[in-house]
């Protein structure tokens, strides 16, 4: 039984990472209707910033998270304002292609700047864990989960308790109406994408603490963010949290099955089944 408990805990901890990764992706998709294929690359930019600060000035990875957020916000704002805004009203596939191109550029630039070497952030406490009987909770991953919940809370607060959030939601609900009441659309688009990128950066900072970083390490995270958002449902912070935790659980519990090689297959088959049974995701709005 404790074996099972351990697996569930690990699944939830992994799910926390997915929540952190998917929050920004979900915001950008829900409000701007952009499936951002460069999301994983932005995550890894955050990882590299944390790595750089850690190796250069020994800044604790968790302390560098606000810096990740700030830098990524600026990058995201500029990207949307300067480039993606130009095709924001084109059909879905075009923004999709554009972000594919942006992903290629970011990954190549990372390769140029940081070389393909495997980078890793290893603070002194990285290997330690809390032992509760026969169950172990690694500190780093627990920290990641806490940050993920803080991020989810921050996202919820921004969207539901601030003027900016109200404006963002208004843009998501009806662009033309939002413009009529005097909201500067270009600015709001850029702001939304910037916030999404900032959350991606923080997720990247967490990821750097338990996984080795290479320029292409972000690609799987785009796919996972995609899956998490669909699983939970678009348009709600709580849905993303549920989707992320579920996806993490499926992946880890899949590993204890007969063929862990099937873990990815199982995760995606569950995803497809959820979609067919509940096309709007587990908690998605039915509108």
């Amino acid at each position, binding site marked *: 039984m404790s*074996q099972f408990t351990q697996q569930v805990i690990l699944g939830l901890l992994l799910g926390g990472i997915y929540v952190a990764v998917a929050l920004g992706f979900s915001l950008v998709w829900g409000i701007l209707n952009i499936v951002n294929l460069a999301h994983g690359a932005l995550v890894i930019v955050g990882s590299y910033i944390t790595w750089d600060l850690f190796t250069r000035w020994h800044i604790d990875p968790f302390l560098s998270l606000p810096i990740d957020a700030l830098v990524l916000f600026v990058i995201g704002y500029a990207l949307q304002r300067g480039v993606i805004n130009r095709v924001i009203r084109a059909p879905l596939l075009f923004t999709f292609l554009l972000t594919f191109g942006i992903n290629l550029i970011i990954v190549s630039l990372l390769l140029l700047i940081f070389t*393909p070497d*495997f980078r890793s952030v290893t603070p002194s406490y990285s290997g330690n864990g809390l032992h509760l009987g026969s169950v*172990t909770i690694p500190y780093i*991953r627990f920290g990641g989960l806490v940050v993920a919940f803080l991020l989810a809370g921050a996202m919820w607060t921004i969207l539901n308790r601030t003027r900016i959030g109200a404006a963002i939601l208004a843009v998501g609900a009806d662009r033309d109406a939002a413009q009529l009441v005097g909201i500067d659309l270009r600015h709001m688009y850029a702001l939304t994408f910037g916030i999404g990128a900032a959350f991606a950066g923080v997720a990247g900072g967490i990821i750097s603490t*338990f996984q*080795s970083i290479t320029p292409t*390490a972000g690609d799987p995270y785009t796919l996972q963010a995609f899956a998490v958002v669909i699983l939970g449902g678009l348009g709600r912070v709580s849905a993303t949290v549920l989707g992320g935790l579920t996806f993490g659980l499926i992946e880890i519990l899949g*590993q204890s099955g007969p063929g*862990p090689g099937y873990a990815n297959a199982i995760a995606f088959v569950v995803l497809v089944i959820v979609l067919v049974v509940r096309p709007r995701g587990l908690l998605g709005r039915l509108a």
Partner: protein
Amino acid sequence: MRREKLGILLALTAVVVTACGGASGGGTPTTGAAIVFGAAVSLTGAQSKEGGLTKQGYDLWLDWINQRGGIVVNGVKHPVQIKYEDDQSTPNLSATLVQKLITDEKAQFILGPYGSAATATDAIVAEKNGVPMVEANGAAQSIFSKGYKFTFGVLSPANKYLTGVLDMAATLSPKPTTIAMLTANDNFSVEVAKAVEDYAPTKGFQVIFTKQYPAAAPEVSGLISQAARLNPDIVMNSGHLAESIAINKGAKQLGLNAKIFAYSVGPSTPDFIKALGPDANYVFDGSQWTPQVKYKPSFYLSVSEYVKAYKTKYSTTDDPDYHVAESTAACLAFQKAIENAGSLDATKVRDALAGLDVMTFFGQIKFDSRGINTFKPMVVEQIQNGTHYTVFPADVANGKPQYPTPPWSSR
């Protein structure tokens, strides 16, 4: 300003000296047309790290051979060129690029790419074109059981990667008995693991846990926690660098204490020690080559000269890892075969490769009937206090295995 002038002066002197040197050696070989080698390696994409190491290995030999004026064929020195194409870590693209190298770039010989899938694809193109290919980075044996006549591999096949660790473990006391085996589900890694599972019982070991995980998805904490409950004496991973780092981190976090941690690929690279710091200590790996081996080469550089040449060329303090060395060895096999054949004819060089038997800094290069080098042993190395030591077999070792690995809590 003055320094610059001095530099130019020095360069000029050097040119004059070499020119004189070349002239004074009259009567020796005249210079022939350049020999063109082609290589499609991954310089971008997921395998750009390993692709880069492969290219380093090829370039090291290229500098050396051209300093000597080239490969000697029937008394004529032919300088060497290597044309590179980037396959972006995509096997399908690799096939087109090899064809491009052969057709457009007029490559007479092909040096292999990185990875077993790309190697299989390229081997078929080489075979269709009748162009010899020597590969150094695809250890999966499946490629060599298809009767292809033009592909040779200088490295020991996948099934030898971790069996050396078992041989070593059998000599230790108290003798470890149980093994937990984690395997990435790619071609190469599965072959490595299969060999361990077959070989372990013959040496008195028992494989008590064996599971595969999806390659390139370094999320293995679930598997590690399962393995930890069984308290295995030996934890083995057959995968790649990213996974070996993840497994080592996970083992510490989840309290998986084994007497031996041994990983197929990863610990031999400097990145492994940089990423893990002191936690990298005690880890064993099966290696194609280490900078400490004691082979007596019949040509090219000695092991220590090779290490020095590497550090100079790439301005680094890191030792070359085995990916670099095996890539250089592929070039050496070609060089010797071309010299032996006394010809640049593809079929003659192929035949010379098939009959090759030569000792290099990398070890013996000799191909069995399938075209793979089963004659070179693998070595076992261990990271001790942040440094690599070769610990097995004893005749090439420069250190003793530190055993057993202390539990994480008392490190």
